[in-house]
């Protein structure tokens, strides 16, 4: 396939039938619409292109900045498209919750604005929230911004009404599926696809999935938040069901480990929500049915999200020479010296604090190896000879005692920890220097 520009690769994603041995549904064929295969990585590529297309010429002529309230895939797609046209892109968000996406957006050249948190002392005369204020600034004429406005822009829905939806029907040999399961974010894809499918067959059942109220699943709104979305119309969904971040991760794991589909948490949530809903119906069915859900994006951007919630997935056996394997007795027995003796120390002095703190003030003649780095060095063995006396220094003498105990265990005879750390050193009036 030959294209003139990357945006031509958006859309026409495959519809893949999932193995019944994995999902366990007997009478229902479950299909995944693989939106993760869009060139910028998600279903949002379609909406981003559809929304920005009519704005590009004017923005380029005026030199406007493209702006969107997004902390995820829409921002990513818009940043890339804006960049192709030499336009700056700015994303405004009330919380960048996924650090990888934040870094990725910065890498793509996006400018990021984060809105402030709620005031601790409420000002009852301030009835306007920062988001509405921001909104008004953006929509002023001559503001220097073009705002794609994904939560209210009908073109977000149209991208799926004319794209995603008809593609599904075409791939099912001209039939609409019996069930369509969708996570509700901007409501653009669920509304657009549902509309397209129902034009074909008004009996399609549409199941909307939202996050539990206090939960956070990237790309899915909570049951309260959906009401803030202009495109959200409760009439679109035959039923709205709640999924948790735990469900989403369970689904994600099934997709990545069993289905050859490196899906992110939104896709995982859609899978899990679909199987849960359909399993209850499956036993009552007497004829074959089809169901479709959307895999919105890819897993790679969510490693820290997953690590926070399922640390066990990333569990590695403890490294060798690790302070965590020390016993309390070993640490208590770590040899120490007091400030007086330390001031006459004949050997190496290693300061385990961070480089800024070290640079600001340290014991004259000491060298700085920050604890994280020191830990890494020790995994590989002793970084100095056994005949080299070593004095370890940390803020209060606690970390240094642990590393002294570890060095002792590793067979270094001449290691000491400065009792009370650099704070005791300071409090004793001993000299600290700055280079």
């Amino acid at each position, binding site marked *: 396939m030959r294209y003139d520009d990357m945006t031509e690769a958006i859309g026409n994603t495959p519809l893949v039938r999932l193995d019944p041995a994995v999902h366990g549904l007997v009478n229902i064929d479950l299909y995944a619409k693989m939106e993760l295969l869009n060139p910028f990585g998600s279903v949002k590529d379609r909406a981003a292109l559809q929304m920005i297309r009519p704005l590009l010429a004017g923005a380029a002529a005026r030199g406007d900045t493209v702006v969107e309230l997004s902390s995820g895939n829409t921002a990513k797609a818009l940043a890339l498209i804006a960049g192709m046209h030499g336009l700056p892109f700015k994303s405004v968000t009330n919380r960048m919750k996924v650090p990888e996406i*934040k870094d990725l957006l910065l890498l793509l050249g996006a400018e990021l604005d984060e809105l*402030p948190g*709620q005031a*601790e002392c409420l000002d009852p005369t301030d009835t306007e929230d920062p988001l509405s204020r921001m909104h008004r600034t953006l929509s002023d004429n001559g503001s220097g911004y073009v705002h794609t406005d994904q939560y209210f822009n009908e073109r977000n829905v149209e991208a799926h009404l004319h794209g995603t939806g008809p593609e599904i029907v075409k791939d099912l040999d001209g039939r609409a599926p019996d069930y369509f399961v969708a996570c509700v974010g901007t409501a653009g894809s669920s509304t657009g696809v549902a509309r397209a499918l129902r034009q074909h067959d008004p009996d399609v059942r549409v199941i909307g999935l939202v996050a539990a109220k206090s939960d956070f699943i990237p790309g899915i709104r909570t049951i309260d938040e959906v*009401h803030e979305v202009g495109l959200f119309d409760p009439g679109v969904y035959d039923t709205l069901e709640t999924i948790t971040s735990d469900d989403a991760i369970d689904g994600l794991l099934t997709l990545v480990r069993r289905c050859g589909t490196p899906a992110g948490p939104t896709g995982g949530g859609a899978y899990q929500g679909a199987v849960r809903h359909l399993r209850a119906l499956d036993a009552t069915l007497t004829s074959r049915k089809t169901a479709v859900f959307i895999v919105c994006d890819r897993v790679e951007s969510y490693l820290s999200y997953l690590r926070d919630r399922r640390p066990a997935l990333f569990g590695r056996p403890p490294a060798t020479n690790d302070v965590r394997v020390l016993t309390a007795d070993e640490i208590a027995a770590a040899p120490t010296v007091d400030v007086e003796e330390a001031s006459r120390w004949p050997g190496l002095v290693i300061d385990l604090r961070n480089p*800024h703190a070290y640079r600001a003030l340290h014991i004259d003649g000491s060298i700085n190896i920050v604890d994280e780095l020191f830990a890494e060095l020790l995994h590989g063995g002793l970084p100095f000879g056994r005949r080299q006396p070593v004095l370890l220094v940390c803020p209060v003498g606690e970390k240094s005692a642990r590393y002294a105990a570890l060095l002792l265990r590793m067979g270094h005879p001449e290691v000491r920890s400065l009792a009370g750390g650099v704070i005791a050193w300071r409090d004793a009036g001993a000299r600290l220097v700055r280079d």
Partner: protein
Amino acid sequence: MTDSRPLELVPRIEPILQSVLAENALLRQLADGLGSPLNIVLPGALAANVESFRAVYRAHRLRGHIYFAHKANRSAALLRQLATTDAGVDVASLAELQHALGAGFTPDRVIATGPKNREFLWLAARTGVLVNADSLDELSELAALVAINRLPRVRVMVRLAGFAAPGVQLISRRSRFGVPFDQLTEVLGRLDKHAEQLELVGVAYHLDTIGLPEKAVALEGCLAALDECRNRGVPVWSVDIGGGFGVNYLAEAGQWERYTSELAQAVLGRRPPMTWNGHGYGLRNEAGTLRGALGLYPAYRPVSGPGYLDQLLTTLAPAQRRPLGELLLDSMIDLDIEPGRALLDQCGLVLARVLEVRTGSADLLVRLEMNARDVSLEEHGVLMDPVLVGAGDRPPEPTEVFLLGNLCLESDLITRRKVTLPARPRPGDLLAFVNTAGYFMDFSATRALHQPIGRKVALFRDGDRWSWCLDEQYWPVHERTEAA
């Protein structure tokens, strides 16, 4: 999706407050004798709150002052009791400083913050308390005052504002306080000039936000400022991060979530109104879409007070990517904090008598012998139901009521929402607004219409029972009966 069960917001009540609420007869006597409304403070609940903050310090191996933000409550009893703990006090007016000194705080345990007049500055300098300066001009004014009156050199901190984050522009609400971070060089120049009068001991910030990311940026900014001070040869060892640690007011997450969900439904017109004249607490209905933002304190806040401090210290510094607590420790910096509300958690309640229970309309209206300024929960956006004293003796009958105040004023609603009481109230009943010692007790009370301001009493344990005295009579002198 409407739900017709009563929408309760049951307050979180710890054992010490619970045991006061069980003193039916005592509470009734107090209200009969001293009138309604009546403010009750519990000095005995303070020590545990100080200790739980101190435990976070210990866990992070940090040192520094815990300054109680006096403005949260004017009570003498609370302040005197606090003087027996290792906490200090943050005073923001001349009278608060006088009060703190008189309550037993030595000047080394006091910090003067906020906007200051000359008299406040003079007494602060004269007694030698730490002055947290809000502007460059304040530094100069203080230095001149010290020079002219030949006062001893004053220890100062400088409050900074307008910190910049790396990578992401973190927008913070505009603040009227503090010196812009980019004027640090000017600050240090000014201090150099007044070196004989002023001794810089650290820098400060206070952000009015519950957002951790903004505070992380500010704290790392302060570390950079301290580094710059040291670079110029000024030996500074402290950072003051202000307050805003918050309190968890409600017992159950589920009730808070259900309440706020239903409120959104009510604003959208999908369920009967829950508030007076359909008040939306900041939410509004625009063509079927919910707009605006919920202008309410997050009354259910599982991570608050000491837990919030712990979370801040565990947060990675945005630039250096090392936990903020470890950065402080590495740089040997003492951490000073100024909690107000969080130190007064569970330390008091406001009692009010029911005057009238009005039926006849669709809603049950309950008029109290108090007004909305006497317990300013609504003003601060904190939603929790009052406790009906003695309700345990009646058959349960959850009842939704509006609470009206005693001012001849349409707007004098103690709650603009229906609250849920466990039983139907009757005239003469007492309602207790619990956990109101921090900011809701005497902060806004007025004598409008010559209505009285509630008296304040301190309750304390005397052997195995509760005893009481007027707030100003309370001194933390124990075994008052046995000592005689």
